[in-house]
């Protein structure tokens, strides 16, 4: 309890113009923990993940990743906005996996994985290639290294996307509905990769409607609604015996 939390959100607020999307989120993710975020559409799950990854700026509250503020720098008791180059460096430490994969379509699977380590971290190409091949093996796609995304199935694309994020050696992985765009029979292969990652000790924040996954590898499940955390706790307890009416109503729809 005394270690530095990987993610610490204190009373986070975020608005898009007049639309108040996050209305006071409090969360804590310990290193090595898997937190599953669930909630109805529009509750702000994606927005919260994007805030963690500096893709959106929060309007109020304090958000820190691994003990360092997100988007700001504290100097002399005042907050200074981070420069673009600093933001990029922070983002490089956090992996993100998207619902629609967002692989680079003009690069092969291997090139997708190698791009950021070679260009951002400037690691030697042969080292990167070896690491990329290891990652492809880890997600079970060694034989697809030279395929372009258009030549891969949805499940294969998402596994390449996970490998691409892992190639930067992130200390935190964010997943935004990684299996929602997949045919049902392809969901399992992606979840298997994520489960293995969780067992290997990766800190993960996962937005998903896969309650089986939450129950199996989630350390904590957080139910969000209307920009607020409604209920959180051990997945087995929250999912089988929700306390809050809104949680019950939501779970009865997705289970």
């Amino acid at each position, binding site marked *: 309890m005394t270690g530095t939390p990987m993610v610490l959100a204190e009373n986070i607020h975020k608005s898009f113009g007049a639309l108040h999307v996050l209305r006071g989120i409090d969360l804590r993710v310990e290193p090595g923990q898997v937190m599953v975020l669930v909630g109805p559409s529009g509750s702000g799950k994606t927005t919260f993940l994007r805030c963690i990854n500096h893709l959106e700026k929060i309007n109020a509250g304090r958000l820190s990743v691994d003990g360092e503020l997100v988007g700001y720098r504290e100097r002399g008791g005042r907050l200074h906005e981070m420069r673009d180059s600093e933001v990029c460096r922070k*983002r490089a430490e956090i992996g993100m996996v998207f619902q629609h994969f967002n692989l680079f379509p003009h690069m092969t699977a291997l090139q997708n994985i190698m791009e950021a380590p070679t260009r951002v971290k400037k690691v030697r190409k042969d080292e990167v290639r070896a690491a990329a091949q290891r990652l492809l093996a880890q997600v079970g796609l060694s034989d697809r290294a030279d395929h372009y995304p258009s030549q891969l199935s949805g499940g294969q694309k998402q596994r390449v996307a996970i490998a691409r994020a892992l190639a930067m050696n992130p200390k935190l992985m964010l997943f935004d509905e990684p299996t929602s765009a997949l045919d049902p029979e392809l969901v399992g292969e992606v979840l298997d990769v994520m489960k293995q990652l969780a067992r290997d000790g990766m800190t993960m924040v996962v937005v998903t409607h896969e309650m089986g996954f939450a129950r199996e590898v989630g350390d904590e499940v957080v139910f969000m609604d209307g920009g607020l955390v409604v209920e959180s706790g051990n997945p087995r307890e929250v999912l089988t015996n929700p306390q809050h009416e809104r949680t019950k109503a939501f779970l009865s729809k997705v289970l």
Partner: protein
Amino acid sequence: MTAQDEAAGTTVSRPPDIKAVPVRHPGRWVAVAIIAVIVAMMVHTAVFARVKRGNSLQTRFGWGVVGDYLFARPILQGVLTTLELTAIGMAIGIVGGILLAVMRLSVNPVLSGVSWVYLWFFRGTPLLVQLAFWYSGISYLYPQLSLGVPFGPEVTHFSANNLIVPMVAACIGLGFNEAAYMAEIVRAGILSVEEGQMEAASSLGMNRALTMRRVILPQAMRVIIPPTGNEVISMLKNTSLAYIAAVGELYFAQYIIAARTYQIVPMLLVACIWYLAMTSVLMVGQYYIERHYARGAVRQMPPTPWQKFRGLVRRRPPTPAEIAVDAGADLPTWHGVQGGQH
């Protein structure tokens, strides 16, 4: 009986092929006859008809003169200058266009405003006027160009007439004008790339410049290349306007000969033949470049005309492996979504 039927163990008796009387199209034959007569008349007047000019009998179009001058030194020199102008003009246009497009899409209102004003001016005035302006306007407005501190002491100065020599004026004129059109093409290309690509690159820690160069622009190419091919072809033809700046490109070269020999029509034919030859080569090049940038977006490349031709000779379509070999072998073949993963 098909293989499937056999596999299914059923026997289907196939009825005989239908033999029906095809619909007659008498109108087509009438059209063919009319067109044949017109073509014959055109060939006759263009190739065989002779007219008396001076005291010699010549073909109506003066093909003899065309042949005499087609490879004349001044004409070849003009062709070379036309190609130079096209290349330099396009180079300035593409670099300027990318710059203007990125500025236009920038969050900085000053940059996007400057870009807008540039486009407004250069697309709103005729190219001929712009070329004339670069050629003579500058030396009229600023006869003494000076280098020095703005509004401060001059360090050096020289005559604009030496600087804005015809070729430089033409390159600047064609290039700056082209940049305005290329900017719109590049901007459409950038906007055609999915927003998720930007996000994915950002989440990997790539900065804006790197994302633009490595992720956005290569994908925008697919949208940018086809209209750019058209722009190159327009540019090649627009170089003829550089005669206003006294540049000895193809049109100016043939004009000088025509003015001296009074062989106006044959010399225009010489110019047409060269323009057509150059644009034809460009069109073929455009086809292959477009094909290259379709990589990754289509699962199987369409065959090139050469592959189609070989396929025709072989009487079977080329196999994917052959296509991959012909295309430079960097294309994986599509095997379909493999089972076993499920």
